[in-house]
């Protein structure tokens, strides 16, 4: 069976437009609101949903997503509940679901079991930023992804050497997640001026689609990626929309914001 991620990437190419992946922390702003807000993202035009399982010590995340993780955990979010949220979204939205987790979440659940449970929840791919290729020999994470027929989405950064880009490209499936800058997650006004040369370096070593995230918060930034990447990822900026909105009206605000990223 063809992967929903691949199908969506092919459709984007046919339509000649930039894809949009929006991010949400499972359990944020509350366990009940995650799914309606994610649906609002899809109504606004998201092509993929990235669902993050909250973790107490999220190394790659800036203050916005960290705050969302803390709130989700305070709301009682667990791995099991996050998988249930992913399952609800995969069956009800029609867009591919990508699950993002830190490796301890995967490891504590049991690596093989986590991959199988994510697959059963209808998840198309896993992003585990702190699981580098070098630890595969001890963890068998990629092997478990293969065994469960779920994509292992590699993350690379501007600091990655060509050698490391090639190594990661070899194991990459679905798309490569390329951080737009050397840094942690968080909305920024400007894109890194060296971004296009870095994305060209990736294109030279890999033919799979490129998703660019970290610091993307506006339609202008999304547009600036066209021609260099296939998918723009927006995370912290949406959490900021939810925070500004306060209680009530988050769904409409998120839908409008996502729509704005697409059309302006």
């Amino acid at each position: 069976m063809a992967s929903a991620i691949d199908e969506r990437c092919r459709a984007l190419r046919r339509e000649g437009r930039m894809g949009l992946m929006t991010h949400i922390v499972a359990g944020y702003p509350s366990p009940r609101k995650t799914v309606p807000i994610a649906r609002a993202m899809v109504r606004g035009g998201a092509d993929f949903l990235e669902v993050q399982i909250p973790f107490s010590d999220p190394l790659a995340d800036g203050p916005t997503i960290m705050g969302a993780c803390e709130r989700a955990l305070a709301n009682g979010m667990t791995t099991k509940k996050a998988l249930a949220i992913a399952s609800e979204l995969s069956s009800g939205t029609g867009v591919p679901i990508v699950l993002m987790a830190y490796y301890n979440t995967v490891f504590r659940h049991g690596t093989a079991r986590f991959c199988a449970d994510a697959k059963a929840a209808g998840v198309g791919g896993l992003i585990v930023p702190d699981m580098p290729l070098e630890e595969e020999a001890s963890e068998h994470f990629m092997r478990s992804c293969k065994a469960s027929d779920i994509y292992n989405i590699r993350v690379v950064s501007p600091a990655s050497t060509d050698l490391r880009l090639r190594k990661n490209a070899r194991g990459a499936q679905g798309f490569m997640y390329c951080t737009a800058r050397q840094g942690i997650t968080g909305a920024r006004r400007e894109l890194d001026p060296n971004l296009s040369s870095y994305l060209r370096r990736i294109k030279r070593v890999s033919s799979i689609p490129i998703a660019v995230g970290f610091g993307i918060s506006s339609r202008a930034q999304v547009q600036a990626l066209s021609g260099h990447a296939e998918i723009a990822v927006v995370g912290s900026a949406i959490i900021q929309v939810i925070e500004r909105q306060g209680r009530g009206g988050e769904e409409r605000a998120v839908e409008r914001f996502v729509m704005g990223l697409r059309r302006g």
Partner: protein
Amino acid sequence: MNGHFGEFGGRYVPEMLIPALEELERTYSSARSDPDFRKEFTHQLKSFAGRPTPLTFAANLTKRLGGARIYLKNEGLNHTGAHKITHCIGHALIAKRMGKRRLIAETGAGQHGLATAAVAARFGFSCRVYMGAVDIERQRPNVFWMERLGAEVIPVRFGSATLKDAVNAAIKDWIENVGDSYYLLGSAVGPHPYPTMTRDFQSVVGREARRQILEAEGKLPERVAACVGGGSNAMGIFSGFIRDSGVKLVGVEAGGTGTADGRNALRFRSGTVGVAEGYKSYFIQNRDGQLSRTHSIAAGLDYAGVGPELAYLRSRGRVEFASATDSEALSAFTALSRHEGIFPALESAHALAYAMKVAPRMRKSDALLVNLSGRGDKDLFIVARALKDAGFSSFLRAEGRRR
């Protein structure tokens, strides 16, 4: 060097830190085989830190306890008050070699931050130290001294606002500023090559202690005890005796105020294997792998993880673990002050408390070596409060009025 200690250790970090860790590993492995580097390191340890530190026979304590002969490796006599300055000098020399201009560190008790701030001042780096807001409250004097040394101390308010969160904040800063900054991690934890580097730099403690006790006793000690937060002082002294299979090595964890969740930092009793902050080891965490709150009267032991090499040595049966509670540590603090004229750091007082428990059950001909990793001056406020010292609290009130 491959960074794995059995199933523990490794380098579980986002891709964007891997090039920086690889560069650090390359620089370190060239430095450690460079005679000039070793000479400079040794020179700085002697002329700046005050090494070698003395080995002190605790004659009065030994007599009172009536068992094993207790020896103290007095690391508290290092400049800045603890063993931490030793690996800070090593790291600062590596940072210089790499052409870095800025040092980043996290700190729990403030001892590592203080030592980092001192080497930053001496070797000409700018310096930023992350410290949990809770730790700042209990170790304010060290914040004051770090600032006098020119360091910028940043309170970390997220998570449990203690050491693990300070580690997180420091790593994030490093991710953002990897070009000009050097992350001077404070213990034998974190992603490879940090646990190895810290152990290597600190191994001078074990080499000195082994030579000194052979000189004093004419034989090796039966036991060596060290407190364990992340494990830098323990790995330092243990590495000197690791091949001496007859020497029992004991790590002492913080028993806090009890065995209930959140009341201690007993990683090996309450914890399970996990992956966080870039390495695999034992962590105090829930079923889903969320790191839990910990407690100890000693900020330097109040940490959810533990060095991966110690986890490995425990799994091989080479290092045993024991614990001491807050109140046992305080009693040990008082005993050492009264009977030997030495204030131990509250962290080190945990190792001493263990020694006081086991010494009476050991033979009089046995030698028990305790790593006194730091001195207790920094704990003035905590000890004064714990001992309910009326004179000191009226001084504090008067001091408040004078401002």
